[in-house]
């Protein structure tokens, strides 16, 4: 399979000269099995260009099929969908998988397309779009690919996906906070928590982390939310994002082969991203870790397994 990054940014798209190399589009990753339809993870603004590229293939003739796995429905993971060209061509089949919400998923996604926010309602888009509600732990098949999932520690709950195909595996682990300081659920958290976690919360976080490590076990590629530096995390532990240090610990415990830093902070310049990558490559080298580290940028393509 080939893994290609179309959007690597967290929170909000950031056009401008300081983001030219890593890219300013929000989260979107394409997983292309050697045979079969593309699988897309998350639909941030990066999906706009992916859509244009798909329209050069059978999607132009309304004969395409694509599965979109949504980690969670925060804006930076869904906001590109109204600009995904294959949805405007009759005959294309779009399968959207996302975690069950209080409302039916179709209602959640429709809200983004409806007046007074957007001119083209979801119901007016010509492709056939189906919504598949899942819960963490779900396992299912897409063509030759096997998809499994686990819960992450993020406001209103996000899920991580693992895709196994072509004798290789990739894990997409965004968005998540570390599993140490806070347990995220449905509350709005205005400030960093004070006091210690209750034993039951600690236990739940411990189990959640074990679930992520198990999901990532022996994977070829682990893509991980590393929005914060350790200094930034100290101020914003209540925002639901991790540090490269957290990703490295998961990568070690799961014995992955490659770790990819992802979901870069909006104000992070290309030069800062270079420095972060160099620093953590050195950390991994000094520790004699067996995995390599890369940092995701728009256009990065990683071939895994049987290609």
């Amino acid at each position, binding site marked *: 399979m080939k893994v290609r990054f179309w959007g690597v940014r967290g*929170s*909000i*798209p*950031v*056009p*401008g*000269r300081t*983001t*030219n190399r890593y*890219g*300013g*589009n929000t989260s979107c990753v394409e997983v292309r099995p050697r045979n079969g339809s593309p699988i897309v993870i998350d639909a941030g*603004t990066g999906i*706009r260009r992916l859509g244009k590229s798909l329209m050069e293939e059978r999607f132009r003739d309304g004969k395409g099929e694509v599965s979109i796995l949504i980690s969670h*429905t*925060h*804006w930076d993971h*869904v*906001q*590109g969908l*109204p*600009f995904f060209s294959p949805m405007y061509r009759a005959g294309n089949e779009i399968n959207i998988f996302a975690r069950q*919400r209080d*409302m039916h998923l179709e209602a*959640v996604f429709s*809200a*983004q397309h409806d*007046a*007074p*926010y*957007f*001119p083209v309602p979801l119901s007016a888009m010509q492709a056939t779009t189906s919504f598949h509600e899942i819960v963490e732990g779900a396992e299912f098949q897409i063509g030759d690919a096997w998809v499994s999932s686990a819960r992450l520690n993020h*406001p*209103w709950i996000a899920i991580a996906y693992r895709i196994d195909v072509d004798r290789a595996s990739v894990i997409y682990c965004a968005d998540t906070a570390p599993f140490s300081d806070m347990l995220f659920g*449905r509350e*709005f958290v*205005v400030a960093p928590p004070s006091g210690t976690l209750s034993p039951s919360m600690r236990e739940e976080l411990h189990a959640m982390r074990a679930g992520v490590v198990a999901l990532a076990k022996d994977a070829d590629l682990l893509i991980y939310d590393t929005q914060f530096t350790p200094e930034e995390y100290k101020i914003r532990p209540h*925002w*639901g994002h991790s540090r490269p240090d957290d990703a490295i610990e998961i990568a070690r415990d799961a014995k992955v082969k490659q770790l990819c830093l992802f979901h870069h902070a*909006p*104000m992070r310049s290309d030069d800062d991203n270079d420095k972060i990558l160099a620093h953590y490559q050195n950390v991994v080298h000094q520790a004699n870790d067996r995995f390599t580290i890369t940092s995701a940028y728009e256009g990065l393509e990683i071939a895994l397994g049987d290609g």
Partner: protein
Amino acid sequence: MRLKFWGVRGSIPAPGPETNRYGGNTSCVSIATASGGLVIIDMGTGLMHLGNSLLGGPFGKGQGKAAILLSHTHWDHIQGLGFFAPVFIPGNQFTLWGPGGSDGVLESILEGQMDPNFSPLQTLKNFSANFEVRAVKCGATFETDGLQIVAREHAHGGTTALAFRITEEERGAEGRKKVFVYASDVGYPETGPDAEAIAHYADADVLLHDTTYKPEDQATRRNRGFSSYEEAVAAGIAARAKRLVTFHYDQDYSDDDVDAIIARCRELAAPSGMEIVPAAEGEEIDI
């Protein structure tokens, strides 16, 4: 009035080297008024960068005050609000004027953007600053920061948007009141703007007008409710505007495409004497 452009792009932010010169952020313009006030028009992603630039001044200390004019509630005009740092500092005060018949309905539309399915903020009530929302009906006149503002509703595809005619009370050096008109997301019928629209723009010192499309692209997308640069230039000439600011470039247009649009606008405007000023992120215009 001194204008500054923070976002000039239409529909969706367009990052990449090919948009570096004009900018890829969605709509946001600020006005520094002669009386020392700050008025913000539209809240696209450019608003985040405006907000960050304000933190060094009174807004960083919770002593800031600004008015916000909202043309309409499509994403590219509101998506910066949750990332506008000054709203998270207690003491800052904002009054937003936007389209609608009811303050509560307009507030709930903005609140819909913060819905917990989509945003960790969950509700506007989680803003620490004071954020007041006022609905403006078509033709309404209101005043803020020494500016007199008239809002006119125009067609924008299947919906409508407000164009703001902004007159500064303080007279300029030549003893005349200065006029700035903001008319983004304008969808004229094929017959062009009516007399009422032209009257709204009349004699503007600066007319900022939607120039989303090249005419050939607009021809296949007229139902989307955006202007071509030809329509914008024609409207500016008909209204005897002194300067026309091009704005809200299509997300697929590169800087080179916009250069070509500007060159063509200048050719079209030359006989009238109207000056063409391209909106570009970071640029400022004195009126």
